């Protein structure tokens, strides 16, 4: 670690702590804590969504995959971006119009049933924990590489920072950490892209021509099939990505931080531009790394290719640029995990404690205390799990989180808003079939079972052939909802009129 990297690193840490200090003064109620008082503007929230969404896996991982696998490395980005159309067309506005702090609030606008709330909270918590383990394990390994700190200390450092932001500054601190991260990430990526394009005389054709001969894959590098060779597996994964985003609790939570559906909508617009432009630039980063760093060097530093972007920065801009990019990666990690802690805490403290155990009668003080205890609890649990999972291959947990979100959360969201006959039995059935089928299928899939000892968590022949079960579990979630609804006679059509009117007009908001 050199002096520059320590200085830039400390500046970022100091900046986020100053934000947390000011945010803490403004965090007095649960509404401040979970939603920053609902006062973010469209562009602020759009940047925060991008900051929440673009994890280190997106920044370092995708740039690295493109450098190593060409087009196939870029493939995920398409799913990650198109997914925002599902968010915009189906989820964002009804969620803002019907909910308060969590997804379960929105579903409960229609079914005033504790079991449905509990089920929704459970699936949210499952998603958050899986996503979090993947982020923290990845973060620990990355920080180890970037700054030369031990894995254990790296996880603890990230863990303590995220706890401070959330515990003291709540959603206000988290949002601004995410906004700053989004700005830093865009600045870093634009600088790197500019330097790469300059080397190719600003000609995209020239860039493609050069990378064609720069990698061991030759021409195949520029076409699909280098990495993903099993068609059904690719399609299943891409399905999880496009439908899962609209069910991710930490993304959904960001729609409660704005005042109305109109602002929720414009935040999605901002997010799609930022996220999309970022993904386009990862092509320049990946191709640049392939051409100017070379796959041998990238793989020898980190087999997964995660160091491609920092190495590219070193090659094009020397130590200073590399330090800056490393610091950006650190900020990226912090912003994502803070958002995750907050969404996990809201499911525990607001849904389970406040609404189910206390039946909505907890005092403001009790709710606030619960929120803070839950934040510390979620953070501590994730840190512990991440420490134990160090040697496990957990990269698949991110796509599993998307898969559960698409299988357990999306069906119930869609039916709640659009299906008149949908009832509590249907809601329970949709959540549990989606959740359980995704979990069971993944636990017998090649991601968990591998005949080669040590390659996956269990040694053995996988029973289910696909690495991501989305193509089976998403339909199951939707079918579960239909079957559950039809098996039960109860229905509350009047309540649906209310939900339909409120979801579509934004009137009669219950705060």
């Amino acid at each position, binding site marked *: 670690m050199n002096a520059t990297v320590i200085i830039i690193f400390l500046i970022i840490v100091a900046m986020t702590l100053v934000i947390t200090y000011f945010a803490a003064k403004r965090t007095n109620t649960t509404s401040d804590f979970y939603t920053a008082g609902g006062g973010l503007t469209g562009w602020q929230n759009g940047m925060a969504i991008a900051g929440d969404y673009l994890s280190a896996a997106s920044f370092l991982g995708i740039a690295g995959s493109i450098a190593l696998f060409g087009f196939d490395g870029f493939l995920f980005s398409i799913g990650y971006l*198109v997914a925002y159309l599902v968010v915009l067309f189906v989820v964002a506005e009804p969620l803002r119009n019907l909910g308060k702090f969590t997804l379960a609030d929105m579903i409960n606008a229609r079914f005033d049933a504790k079991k449905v709330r509990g089920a929704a909270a459970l699936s949210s918590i499952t998603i958050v924990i899986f996503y979090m383990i993947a982020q923290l394990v990845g973060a620990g390994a990355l920080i180890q590489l970037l700054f030369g700190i031990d894995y254990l200390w790296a996880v603890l450092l990230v863990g303590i920072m995220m706890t401070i932001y959330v515990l003291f500054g709540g959603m206000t601190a988290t949002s601004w950490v995410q906004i700053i991260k989004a700005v830093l990430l865009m600045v870093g990526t634009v600088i790197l892209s500019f330097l790469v394009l300059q080397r190719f005389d600003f000609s995209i054709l020239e860039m*493609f*021509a050069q990378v064609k001969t720069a990698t061991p894959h030759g021409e195949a590098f520029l076409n699909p099939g280098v990495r993903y060779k099993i068609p059904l597996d690719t399609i299943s994964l891409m399905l999880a990505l496009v439908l899962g985003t609209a069910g991710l609790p930490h993304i959904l939570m960001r729609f409660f931080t704005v005042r109305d559906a109109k602002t929720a909508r*414009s935040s999605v*617009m901002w997010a799609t531009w930022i996220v999309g432009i970022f993904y386009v630039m990862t092509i320049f980063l990946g191709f640049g790394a392939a051409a100017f760093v070379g796959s041998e060097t990238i793989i020898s530093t980190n087999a997964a290719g995660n160091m491609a972007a920092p190495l590219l920065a070193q090659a094009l801009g020397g130590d200073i640029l590399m330090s800056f990019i490393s610091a950006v990666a650190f900020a990226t990690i912090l912003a994502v995990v803070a958002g995750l802690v907050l969404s996990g805490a809201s499911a525990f403290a607001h849904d389970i404690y406040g609404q189910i155990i206390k039946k909505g009668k907890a005092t403001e003080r009790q709710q606030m205390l619960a929120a803070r205890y839950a934040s510390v609890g979620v953070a501590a649990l994730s840190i512990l799990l991440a420490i134990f999972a160090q040697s496990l291959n957990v990269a698949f947990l991110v796509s599993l989180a998307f898969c559960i979100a698409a299988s357990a959360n999306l069906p119930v969201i869609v039916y709640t808003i659009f299906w008149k006959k949908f009832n509590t039995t249907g809601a329970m059935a949709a959540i549990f079939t989606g959740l359980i089928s995704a979990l069971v299928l993944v636990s017998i899939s090649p991601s968990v079972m591998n005949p080669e000892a040590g390659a996956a968590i269990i040694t053995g022949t996988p029973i289910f052939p696909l690495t991501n079960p989305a193509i089976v579990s998403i339909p199951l979630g939707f079918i579960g909802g239909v079957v559950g609804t039809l098996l039960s006679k109860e229905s509350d059509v009047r309540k649906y009129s209310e939900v339909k009117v409120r979801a579509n*007009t934004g009137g*009669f908001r219950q705060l």
Partner: protein
Amino acid sequence: MAKTIAGSKTRAVQVKGKKRGESENGNVVKEAGPNFDAIEASAGFRDLMKKKKAFLIPAITLFLGLYLLFNFVISYTDWLDNPFIGDISWVWVFAFGLFAMTWILVTVYMKRAEKFDEMATKTLKEFNYDKEENR
């Protein structure tokens, strides 16, 4: 902070409780909730839903269809592997097309949604529920 469903502008009752029609000390407020059935059945609301569906159903079919088509084609065939210009193959063109599609659909929807907002506000006003007041 807390506002529950209340009557129209003049009858608006602000209470802090969670449940509709219940005030802070638990006394039931004798205000009936809004008549959602009537709003749902109104011409204005039905027109709003019709216009929304007329946009959303084709838009969702289009983007999911193109997205799935893309994934099937690149997974099962090599149709797109031929060059478009220089070394850039059609697969990049289609991929960027999906990016462009996303931005275009978002932009178009932003315009449409302004109309939807107007229609919703108008409907709520017809029933004497001013939108701002319910926020």
